[in-house]
């Protein structure tokens, strides 16, 4: 960097003599770095980067800060946790388990909760952060979906985002399984059986993953490496890519006066947006600490050590796996058998449904582009009401998984509300197919209503009846028109700016 443009000088209008003195050290340090790697120009660009502001654009940040919290608390936990399935006897301060045989993993988790100062609060913050990491990812995903922010050119970032969601779910489950309490062991057993149900390779996959038949000698140690190293590293790398793409492509914005496809209107990174982001980081940690300190989560000392012959009523996974567990419960007792081979029942609700869920998520931007024939670049977000079909499908999908989740809570619902568990499950079996279409229809009507009230025609981009045709042949018969319009776009944009 050349000397005549000092890194900050002109862009900072305030010049207070008092501060200048304090700055020299900082400046000298900055200069030292700059002489070696340069970067003042880059840094200035970063300071001036513009973020469109809408509160919903910060939801992804929430997920990021939950992840930061997970890394910080998780690192602390690793200093005390011992991922070993070796049998030992507990002699810690929790009297009702003193003298009980257990694995070192469970024992160290107990000691972490009772004998390590600040251990329990860290563990609880970690667990709440995991639940909220997933929750904020899902809310963020919903925001991106309903505003159409996944459209070209952002399909890549959508794919990275869905991958992050998948990794986060896996890592959450791995963490839940590490402690080797009764609940986590039951969860692992179910995961084992689901993997076992995969045709052809199931037996091999489980044997290699668990190091033999369930419970397997190595699974805790392996999950530990996966939980604290492999997946967090993958998440970190993908997060970096996710953020890089946001910077490279610039954030989308809602349409409005002066807000066009070819500009970004918003706040500068420095100082306002940066301050708000840091503030949000602290607020996120604050909410997580409050939950971690005041609301008990996963009281493993109540569940006791894992024993493959035992189980407790109300065994559920954390919420982000709850829909899968619910699908397992809702599925009737069917399976496919032929010639002595079979595709076991859990394969359909667990492997197939999960595969379909994530397959559709990955494919959505491409499916939608194909159906609508819209291959333009989009930097302006949709308002959900302007896309009744997409919004209706999204709401229907959410209701589908919500019902699955309620199915997963069938026994808790039964106990809490005094219902028959069979009645609850039968209700879910029907609701799964009845409620989503109703939700879709209601949402569609609502979008139309709202748009009509706005006086803006909805971009109901496609006739329902045409979808099969479009999926087969790519974009629809009116493709040409769309292209023409696209061509019209740029000339239209040019005078707008002049």
């Amino acid at each position, binding site marked *: 960097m050349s000397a005549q443009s000092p890194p900050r000088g002109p862009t900072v209008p305030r010049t207070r003599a008092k501060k200048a003195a304090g700055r020299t050290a900082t400046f000298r340090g900055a200069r030292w770095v700059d002489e070696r790697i340069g970067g003042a120009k880059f840094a200035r660009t970063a300071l001036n980067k513009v973020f469109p502001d809408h509160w919903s654009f910060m939801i992804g940040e929430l997920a990021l800060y939950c992840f930061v919290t997970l890394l910080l608390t998780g690192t602390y936990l690793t200093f005390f946790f011992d991922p070993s399935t070796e049998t030992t006897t507990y002699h810690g301060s929790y009297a009702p388990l003193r003298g009980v045989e257990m694995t070192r993993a469970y024992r160290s988790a107990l000691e972490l909760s009772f004998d390590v100062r600040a251990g329990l609060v860290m563990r609880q913050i970690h667990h709440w952060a995991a639940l909220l990491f997933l929750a904020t990812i899902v809310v963020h995903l919903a925001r991106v979906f309903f505003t159409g922010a996944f459209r070209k050119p952002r399909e890549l970032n959508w794919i990275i985002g869905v991958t992050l969601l998948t990794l986060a779910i896996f890592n959450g489950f791995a963490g839940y399984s590490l402690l080797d309490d009764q609940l986590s062991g039951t969860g692992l057993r179910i995961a084992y059986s689901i993997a076992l149900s995969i045709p052809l390779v199931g037996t091999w996959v489980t044997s290699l993953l668990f190091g033999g038949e369930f419970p397997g000698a190595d699974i805790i140690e392996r999950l530990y490496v996966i939980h604290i190293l492999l997946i967090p590293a993958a998440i970190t790398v993908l997060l970096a890519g996710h953020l890089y793409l946001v910077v490279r492509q610039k954030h989308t914005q809602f349409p409005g*006066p002066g807000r066009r496809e070819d500009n970004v209107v918003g706040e500068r990174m420095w100082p306002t947006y940066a301050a708000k982001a840091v503030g949000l980081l602290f607020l*996120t940690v604050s909410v997580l600490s409050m939950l971690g300190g005041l*609301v008990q989560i996963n009281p493993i000392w109540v569940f006791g050590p894992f024993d493959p012959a035992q189980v407790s*009523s*109300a065994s559920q996974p*954390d919420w982000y796996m709850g829909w899968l567990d619910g699908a397992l419960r809702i599925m009737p007792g069917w399976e496919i058998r032929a010639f002595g081979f079979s595709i076991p029942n859990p394969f359909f609700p667990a492997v197939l449904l999960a595969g379909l869920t994530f397959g559709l998520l990955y494919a959505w931007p491409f499916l939608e582009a194909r159906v609508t024939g819209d291959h333009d670049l*989009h930097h302006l977000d949709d308002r959900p009401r302007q896309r009744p079909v997409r919004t209706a499908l999204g709401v229907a999908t959410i209701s589908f998984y919500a019902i699955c989740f309620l199915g997963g809570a069938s026994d*808790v619902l039964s106990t809490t509300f005094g219902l028959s568990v069979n009645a609850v499950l039968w209700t879910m079996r029907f609701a799964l197919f009845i409620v989503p279409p109703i939700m879709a229809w209601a949402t569609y009507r609502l979008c139309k209503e709202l748009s009509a009230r706005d006086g803006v025609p909805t971009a109901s981009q496609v006739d329902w009846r045409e979808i099969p045709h479009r999926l087969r042949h790519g974009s629809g018969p009116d493709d040409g028109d769309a292209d023409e319009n696209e061509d019209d776009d740029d000339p239209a944009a040019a005078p707008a700016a002049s």
Partner: protein
Amino acid sequence: MNHADQPERRHRRHRRLALVSVLGGVVGLTFLVVGRAPAGADSDLEAHGRSLYLEGCVSCHGTKGQGVGGSGGDNERGPRITDAGAAGAYYMLSTGRMPLNDPNEQPHRKDPAYGPKDIDALVAFVASLGHGPALTKVDLADASLANGGLVFRADCQACHSASGSGGALSYGRAAPSLREATPEQVAAAVRSGPGQMPVFGQGDVDRKQLRDLVAYVQYLRHPSDRGGLAIGRVGPVPEGFVAWSVGVVLLLACVFWIGTRSPIRSRPGANADADADADADAHTNADSDADVGSEP
């Protein structure tokens, strides 16, 4: 017999109302024999119990506890209770499950209909009807919570859940919460297996184990909630509920607060005059035209 049922008089009704079973709607309560009835019960007490029995129980259980049949073959109106024993009778009466107003009702915990003395009398009378399990006195002084926990997790948590909060069974049945159970009631239930509950005899849960188990169940009434608010202690379902209804809501509130501007703010595109704004609108419209394009 020592009654520790005073705490139960709290006016606290279980949420679990009468659930009509899908299978048929017959509540088949059957008390079974384990061990031996106490020898030589006080005859005065027994006589008092007999008069109470003939007043309140006979219509369903018959004069000698043989049960009363309905139109079907089995004892549909009330089951045979000759072998219910002192334990079975004590459990049912002291938890208010008996007497039932309606034989089709699913019994649940309520305030006992009889006072302690009357319960003593009825228990003595029912015990004299056959060879049911006796009441076990439990002295919790030397009990080991750790051993009790082992027994509880092996034999009880499957239905009553690890935290003793109860759980759902099939076809409308439910294992009750143990949060209000007194030591005598727990011991009586283990030995007599009321309702759908299996029976655990000496061969499975011996005297010492029973004592430890009872102590552990008492502990579960107020277990260590070192982590804070217990939110039911039934695992991840309430946790997920709190994560969404408290966590997500708070975080979104933060984001909403940060992301909304002060009431007045500078306008975007301030340099753009009215024409440019009009153009911008036209531009947006052109976009939506492109999207609508395929629609005739």
